């Protein structure tokens, strides 16, 4: 057993996932969202992030290193002039997947890859969600109690697609990238962006705790949280906060994961709980059991996040640094 209670069988499990991930890599160096799919930025980035530490593995290091090199090249070749990444070989428009590419490249040791990550982070910083129309803002100012969606619509967050409204998962990813890159991004923009993103997430909680895609109530009724969205929001907000929303989010995630949900939910649950120092031994064991069932065929993202969970990736590790520093300076 290691410090996280991971046993030999679970390391073999991680090796199996890593092998499978490398086998799914396309000839061009990227990964599709599913097996044999056209290479796309998001799955390629998650795969790179998951494989990067495997390069140092005595058993799989060589094949992982080769796969990593091809993935890095794929991402480097496709980064746009303005720092963003297109959605895929078929979708030239940039969007939320830029944040995942930033998280992948920022974890790499090579300075030139970190520079690429900074360019991507700067692009994200400059492309928050769409602002609501001026007449809506004006109307809400005069009718603050008559907002039917019961949310602060001035809070923008970050969108899935450029020019759209902000939602929970892309906002969470954007927050993680800002914290990873921290002071390498333009100031004071990054501090303000972190404040904006946090405020948006805290405003979009579900009444029973946790997060869904980004709507806590609709049409006078409560909506319910999703495990994956809640995990991303918790990773983004991090363990240094003392917000009630975070505590309720942890409770909600624990409740949602009481029984098996999906491989993705378990993997993200592990990553989120570990960033809060919670015990994840049972979830690790569950993840191994869940992967014993081949149905349904996994997405590349599920595979990569499962590998990250199995290998103890600290996706939320940057939260403490820049986030805490920012809060320290702002009092």
């Amino acid at each position, binding site marked *: 057993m290691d410090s996280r209670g991971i046993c030999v069988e679970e390391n073999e499990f991680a090796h199996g996932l890593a092998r499978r991930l490398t086998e799914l890599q396309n000839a061009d160096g990227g990964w*599709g*969202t*599913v097996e044999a*799919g*056209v290479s*796309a930025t*998001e799955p390629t980035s998650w795969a790179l992030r998951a494989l990067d530490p495997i390069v140092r593995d005595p058993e799989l290091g060589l094949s992982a290193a080769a796969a990593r090199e091809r993935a890095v090249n794929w991402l480097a070749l496709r980064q746009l002039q303005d720092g963003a990444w297109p*959605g*895929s070989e*078929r*979708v030239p*428009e940039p*969007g*939320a997947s830029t944040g995942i590419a930033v998280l992948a490249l920022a974890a790499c040791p090579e300075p030139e890859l970190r520079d690429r990550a900074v360019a991507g982070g700067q692009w994200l910083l400059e492309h928050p969600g769409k602002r*609501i*129309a001026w*007449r*809506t803002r004006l*109307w809400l100012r005069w*009718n603050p109690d*008559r*907002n*039917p*969606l019961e*949310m602060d*619509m001035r809070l923008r967050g970050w*969108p*899935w*697609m450029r020019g*759209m*409204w902000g*939602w929970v*998962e*892309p906002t969470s990813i954007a927050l993680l990238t800002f914290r990873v890159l921290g002071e390498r991004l333009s100031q004071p923009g990054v501090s303000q962006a972190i404040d904006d993103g946090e405020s948006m997430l805290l405003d979009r909680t579900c009444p029973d705790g946790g997060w*869904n*895609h*980004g*709507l806590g109530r*609709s*049409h*006078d*009724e409560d*909506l319910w949280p*999703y*495990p*994956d*969205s809640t995990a991303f929001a918790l990773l983004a907000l991090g363990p240094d906060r003392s917000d009630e929303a975070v505590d309720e989010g942890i409770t909600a995630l624990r409740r949602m994961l009481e029984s098996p*949900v*999906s*491989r*993705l*939910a378990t993997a993200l649950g592990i990553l989120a709980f570990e960033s809060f120092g919670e015990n994840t031994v049972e979830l690790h064991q569950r993840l191994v059991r869940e992967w014993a069932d081949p*149905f*349904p065929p*996994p*997405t590349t993202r*599920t595979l990569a996040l499962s590998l990250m969970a199995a290998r103890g990736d600290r996706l939320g590790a940057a939260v403490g640094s820049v986030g805490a520093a920012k809060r320290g300076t702002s009092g």
Partner: protein
Amino acid sequence: MADRREFVRVTGGATVALGLAGCREQREPGPSWDSSAYSKPDRSPVAILAAETYGKELSDLVSRGLALFPEVRIRDRRVLLKPNFVEVDQAGVINTHPLVLHAAIEAFRRAGAAEVVVGEGPGHRRDTEYLLRETGIGPVLRDTGARFVDLNLDDVTRVPLLGRFGSLGSLYLPDTLLGADLLVSLPKLKTHHWAGVTLSLKNMFGIIPGGVYGWPKNALHMAGIGNSILDINATLARMDRFTIVDGIVGMDGNGPIQGEPRPAGVMVMGVDHVAVDATCCRLMNIAPERVDYLRRASMFLGNLTTDRIDQRAEHVAGHETVFRLIDDFAGLRTVPAASPG
């Protein structure tokens, strides 16, 4: 409710409420569709089949229904079944019932389809594996061996829209959809809190890839829900299509996910999606001509009026069920109705 109406009115409908309130779009003068999208037939057959409960016999029922439409070519063709499955729902009310999907897979195979694929792109939840497990769709796929394609994650091709009701111009569509010979919409009979009703036409939102547009598919909401329904279906008009509506137990009130179960005891089938949806409205005690997007769809996509619809199997009369409507859509009611209780 008055607050929401006022909110939508003052703030311009289609551009507010995080893009979720797009059912009251600005109208454009003149035709808003490409001439090649015009697919309104002279007359439209629609079949209503009585089905009180979900059971194994549904596959025979679907086969009987398909036999009423000999013009639908199935043999040796790739059939894409598009159910409506949007949320975890233990009560079996939100989503197309798994046994209806099971029945459709068997019926199309029996009719000689070369392949039957199930495809869906849920609009809110990204974790499709979770939905497959929790909605009962997963066991159906295991039992039948039918291939499932998450349309949110499929490879895509950009396609110019043949409708110009919204400002989208083009949309990325899944390659599995574009490669299908026959697209079968399998919606649930439901009311919808932004669009009035969600049936065969609205079910097509699920073909739009979240992998490009996100969760939810915000671009469609920003263009207006009704506009997007029309533009998507205009673009699909050149495909061979069929629809089977699961109205055995529908949902009324605050649909599409927060409403109440409303047993209606029917399955409704047809080629003309407008005619099928109009018939479904009549079964729900809703006037289809008052559903804005249906009225506009009837200008070019299909028939809305009873004098153009040939009823096969059962008739509307005798199968009507009063579906509750939220206050915003009370005006859709065919005739003032007592509470369904």
